[in-house]
């Protein structure tokens, strides 16, 4: 019953996807659209099969960059948030720059990063970190600082050190917030990797991420494999989001579902 209920909750989502694909296929047939403008879903599937080697390599490279950037942003973001939670002065000093990180137009600074860091995997990871860092810092800092007063009093009463309070009270409280931030960041990480690859791919270096493939296929007017690459990059984002959700429901379960 439980299994059936879980499966049936996915039914509306699957049904909507089927309807969208059917309408897409019908539109292409009815209006006889040229494949360069909009290929049919079947043509996209065909193109995906034909370019499977390039797509697989691209998915590994882009997925790898997105995962590296995501994990780095979790590590760096949590560390910055922990620093911000320890002192008001640090909070005042760092927070404007954290906001700056969010407001900086990544498409505009990506070429600059390419100049500094080269047409490399490292540059892609760097852009990914910049774009996915803010939700982590913001969520974790909020979690570290949103401690109920009576719990803080309890720790103060027992003479807990700053480190004990951070380790035994603030971090466990912030884990739920970290998961919320990580879910947002997981999607942003893929966007960051793809955007960076648009620029890194232009350098003619031997870089073969999905973003590089997309710009190449766009130039050649090969819309079908371009859409296939788009679908795969979306899938990477969905898998990363689902992994965060899975970890929060298994390994981090103790720290979720409070009260």
């Amino acid at each position, binding site marked *: 019953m439980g299994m059936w209920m879980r499966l049936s909750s996915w039914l509306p989502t699957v049904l909507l996807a089927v309807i969208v694909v059917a309408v897409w296929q019908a539109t292409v047939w009815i209006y006889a659209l040229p494949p360069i403008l909009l290929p049919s879903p079947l043509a996209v599937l065909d193109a995906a099969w034909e370019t499977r080697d390039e797509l697989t390599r691209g998915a590994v490279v882009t997925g790898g960059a997105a995962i590296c950037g995501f994990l780095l942003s979790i590590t760096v973001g949590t560390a910055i948030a922990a620093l911000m939670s320890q002192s008001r002065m640090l909070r005042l000093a760092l927070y404007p720059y954290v906001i700056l990180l969010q407001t900086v137009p990544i498409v505009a600074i990506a070429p600059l990063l390419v100049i500094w860091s080269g047409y490399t995997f490292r540059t892609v990871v760097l852009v990914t970190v910049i774009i996915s860092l803010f939700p982590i810092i913001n969520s974790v800092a909020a979690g570290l600082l949103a401690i*109920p007063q*009576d*719990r803080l*009093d*309890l*720790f*103060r*009463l*027992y*003479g*807990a050190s700053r480190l*004990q309070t951070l380790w*035994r*009270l603030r971090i*466990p409280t912030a*884990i739920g917030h970290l998961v919320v931030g990580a879910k947002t960041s997981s999607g942003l990480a893929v966007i960051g990797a793809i955007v960076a690859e648009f620029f890194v791919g232009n350098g003619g270096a031997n870089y073969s991420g999905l973003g590089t493939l997309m710009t190449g296929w766009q130039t050649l007017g090969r819309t079908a494999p371009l859409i296939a690459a788009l679908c795969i990059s979306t899938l990477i984002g969905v898998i990363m989001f689902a992994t965060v959700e899975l970890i929060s429901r298994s390994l981090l379960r*103790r*720290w979720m*579902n*409070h*009260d």
Partner: protein
Amino acid sequence: MRFGAASAVLQGVDCEIPAGEIVSLIGPSGCGKTTLLRALAGLQTPTSGQIAIDPPARASRGEIAFVFQQPTLLPWRTAIENVMLALQLCDAAVSKHEARQRAEAELAAMELPTAAFARFPRELSGGMRMRVSLARAMVTQPSVLLLDEPFAALDDLSRSALGELLLRRWDERPFTAVLVTHNIAEAALLSHRVFILKAGQIGAAIVDDLPRPRNESVRTSAEFGGLYRRISAALQAGGS
């Protein structure tokens, strides 16, 4: 002792609490009961005056324990882990094994079913959570126990059971306790003396000389009824 420069919460509070007694602070909402209790715990510093504890006791060594209005349990820790926390924070030398053993003994003394030891707070009833909270306070064997309306949110049955449990623990190992309460019957039942607090000022103590333990015959006696009326009259008169 005085609190607050602009508007004093407590003013001219001058009282002595004999060691090994349970003392109740009773008074209307906003009269400063919790402020006084927090000051005794060192959670709030008076703008003037002083608090002396003889022999000296420190909360950071577990010698003073505080029971909050809410159980204040950490939701990611099981019942036993919440009790162990007090030992882990107060005594760096205590091993995990010893902390667990002492927490188990304390939870058993608080009559929490063994099956509930490994449950998370959200899986416990309100009464059970408060038993865990009391166990956490008692596990360090404090010489001073401060209770801030700990039973206020409980049903009558749980309130009465926990009150009896507190008295039993006091019989086993007497400690000094200060109980903030709104409940006259609770103050009469649990305390050796009752202080009436009104408008930030403390009145003369009402000394309770009824026999202990407080069994059914004591609670239904005319003397107990008389004590209840004395406290009630003092409250209405402003503690004078």
